[in-house]
């Protein structure tokens, strides 16, 4: 079910009504929310609820098995079970086709013609998100950071809670399960605040991402479009705007929905396009994924505890796998590799005397770093958005001023997209050290009400093509 749909509005009204009006008791409320979350997921493709249940049940028993095991070998065995099942499902559904395709290519390169049957498997929506969520729970129990949950219902509720089920934020059990212990009830103002965040998130998705940026991105990144210098840049900057408004919009709606039921979710974005450097960017972009990768991949690999070379290797590996998490294609590997390369380069620069120069503390120096960071992030976005590597290279050539003769100029709507992107980046720079909700909390009330009303009107007057959230495909 899409947040930006009428069916979801009806679903939400029904679930909120049942949560607050029916005499269910706290346990009943949680069971009702869990069942509603299964319905929310099943609306897309009912049989895939089974995968969600498998992941839930396996990790529930694995965590209990780990906690109850007397010997380290038994603990490891339980860990292997959960890793095998979760990563096996993810591997089969998400990476099976990619692995097979590359196997065929490698076989062909050594003269073996192998023609496998067509890999016609649908990617279950949100599998990457809930797999990481359930895995973090078992891994935390394995490392002794938390005790297994006491209640299966609470655990199933944690995995399935619909606001964050299909596209995050990736929530940790240690942060969510304690919220299930005591009854949650948002008062009128908290409920209204949650709904205000829903409006803000939907504005980002429907008006900014789909209405303003997507038409330009789709035109410039269309397979038959030969972009000139300007078109390639504006299309890519528009994609930077689109993917931020789309994904941050989703996360904002998710946080708002959770608040409506009295729960809290982690903030997933913090003005990433105002980042000064790449490590700063990853503190601001998809925070729940970057912290997950740090805690369950980078640190277990050795983090920064070893030599400089080992640290750089760990960074590269983490970012390459982080890229691959997004999708089974070489484009995502390159995207992750580029970010890994940026982080390594930044780390090396920081180790030189150049990093101590007073210039970087001055406004001009900070602006230079900010522009450089944003430009590099945009260059990496090309690989994220383009259909394949040759397509990425064509667009990058155009951005480098080496477009073939007759490269097309940006579509008319690019003016609006450029204005929108400028506004978006400017607002992120201005609010760099705070958050939109914190700004709103301090702003004059009439301005907040007026901007909310304007957003509602803009949402209502933006009927368009159905566009799912970009991160649903991951």
């Amino acid at each position: 079910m899409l947040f930006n749909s009428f069916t979801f509005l009806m679903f939400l009204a029904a679930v909120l009504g049942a949560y607050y009006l029916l005499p269910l008791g706290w346990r009943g409320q949680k069971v009702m929310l869990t069942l509603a979350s299964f319905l929310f997921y099943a609306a897309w493709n009912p049989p895939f609820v089974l995968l969600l249940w498998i992941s839930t049940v396996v990790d529930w028993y694995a965590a209990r098995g780990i906690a109850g095991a007397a010997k380290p070998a038994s603990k490891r065995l339980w860990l292997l079970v959960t890793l095998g099942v979760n990563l096996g499902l993810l591997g089969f559904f998400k990476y099976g086709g990619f692995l097979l395709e590359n196997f065929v290519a490698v076989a062909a390169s050594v003269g073996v013609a192998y023609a496998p049957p067509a890999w016609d498997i649908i990617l279950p929506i949100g599998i990457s998100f809930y797999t990481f969520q359930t895995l973090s729970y078992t891994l935390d129990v394995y490392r002794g950071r938390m005790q297994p949950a006491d209640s299966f219902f609470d655990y199933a509720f944690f995995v399935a809670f619909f606001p964050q089920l299909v596209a995050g934020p990736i929530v940790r059990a240690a942060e969510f399960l304690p919220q299930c212990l005591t009854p949650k009830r948002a008062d009128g103002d908290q409920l209204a605040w949650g709904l205000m965040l829903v409006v803000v998130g939907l504005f980002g998705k429907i008006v900014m991402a789909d209405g303003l940026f997507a038409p330009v991105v789709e035109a410039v990144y269309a397979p038959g479009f030969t972009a000139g210098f300007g078109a390639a840049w504006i299309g890519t900057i528009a994609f930077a705007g689109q993917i931020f408004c789309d994904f941050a919009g989703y996360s904002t709606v998710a946080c708002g929905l959770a608040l409506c039921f009295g729960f809290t979710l982690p903030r997933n974005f913090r003005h990433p396009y105002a980042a000064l450097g790449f490590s700063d960017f990853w503190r601001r972009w998809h925070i729940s994924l970057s912290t997950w990768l740090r805690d369950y991949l980078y640190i277990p690999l050795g983090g920064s505890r070893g030599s400089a070379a080992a640290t750089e290797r760990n960074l590269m590996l983490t970012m390459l796998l982080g890229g691959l998490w997004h999708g089974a294609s070489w484009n995502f590997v390159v995207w992750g590799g580029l970010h890994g390369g940026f982080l390594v380069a930044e780390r090396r620069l920081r180790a030189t005397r150049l990093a101590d120069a007073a210039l970087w503390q001055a406004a001009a120096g900070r602006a230079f770093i900010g522009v450089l960071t944003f430009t590099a992030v945009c260059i990496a976005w090309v690989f994220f958005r383009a259909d394949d590597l040759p397509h990425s290279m064509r667009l990058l050539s155009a951005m480098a001023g080496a477009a073939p003769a007759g490269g097309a100029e940006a579509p008319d709507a690019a003016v609006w997209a450029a204005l929108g992107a400028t506004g978006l980046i400017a607002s992120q720079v201005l609010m760099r050290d705070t958050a939109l909700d914190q700004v709103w909390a301090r702003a004059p009330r009439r301005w907040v009400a007026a901007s909310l009303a304007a957003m509602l009107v803009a949402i209502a007057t933006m009927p368009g093509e159905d566009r799912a959230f970009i991160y649903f495909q991951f």
Partner: protein
Amino acid sequence: MPLAMQHVHAPAGPWRELLTAAAAGALLLLIGAESGWRALDHEPSMRDDPAAWSVRRAQVYGAAPRDRLVFLGSSRIQLAIDTGLLRQAFPGLGVEQLAVEGRSPVAAFLDLAADARFDGVVVLELQPDDLEPTRAGQQQGYVDFFRAGQPLERRIERRIEMELQGRLVFASPELRLPRVLESLLRHGALPLPYQVTTYPDRSRADRFEFADAAGQRRKRMARDAEDYAKDPPSSAADWQARALRLAQAGERIAARGGAVLVFRMPVDDDRAAFEERWYPRAQYWSGFAAASRVKVIDGRDVVELAGVPTPDGSHIDARDRQEFTLRLARLLLREGLLPAPGGA
């Protein structure tokens, strides 16, 4: 800065009052916008796409043979039929508009013919070039979308959208915020009323008062002439063979208790002369009509239909839609394709 997971909380504040005020303000603005657009002659209009087509396609199954009337074709028939009027005139008759602008209906017709559950009446509006191999598959995408099936949620969603867009002007795709802003920026004025209105049941009306009908006529003829010169018509023998295969498919509908009328929309003299140049009726249409075992009628031969004006040469104006619909209904009654209202 530590890489910490900070949760989003609700700060203290009078948010309930604020949200209520914002919602009330937005509602007032939308009511104002709706009234304003209507005052400027804009009408509610729905986005037409394969999803909308599929919603209507799913409605073609009746409880008894011939209690569903389905229109297939392109814009000519889609703009000419007032489906609401037909439903009023024939209580109990389900009327579905499945024509698609600018696309040959052959694929949709073959799909209906092959559908063992369908036993209604089909009015298949056919233009001579609809049978050309380059055009015949143009509605296949719509058929495939319908056959692929959509999750229940998507079908409900589209249905709600169709109802809202069909009732609220500000929800019309033609009045999306970027279009309004663009019109203001480029022309310094709000967008003019859109010529074609699409209703929630996919029927459409063409308001030529908001269009340059003569310009459209010139443009369409020039475009068609260019297309025909590039991709000349098939030989009459090939064309007739294809037309007869289509008619044979129609016999399957008749065998199930349904009925088929292959119908050519009347056009004005200019357009008729143009079509005659490329597809001489005596060589193409007449032979097919004589050999077909399903009913074939050229609207130009039906006096009361031929009299309805077509401002751009081939499309009926919204103001003449009801009259044309009534006349066509009389023809269908006369030909025994529809039962008389109330069984009279």
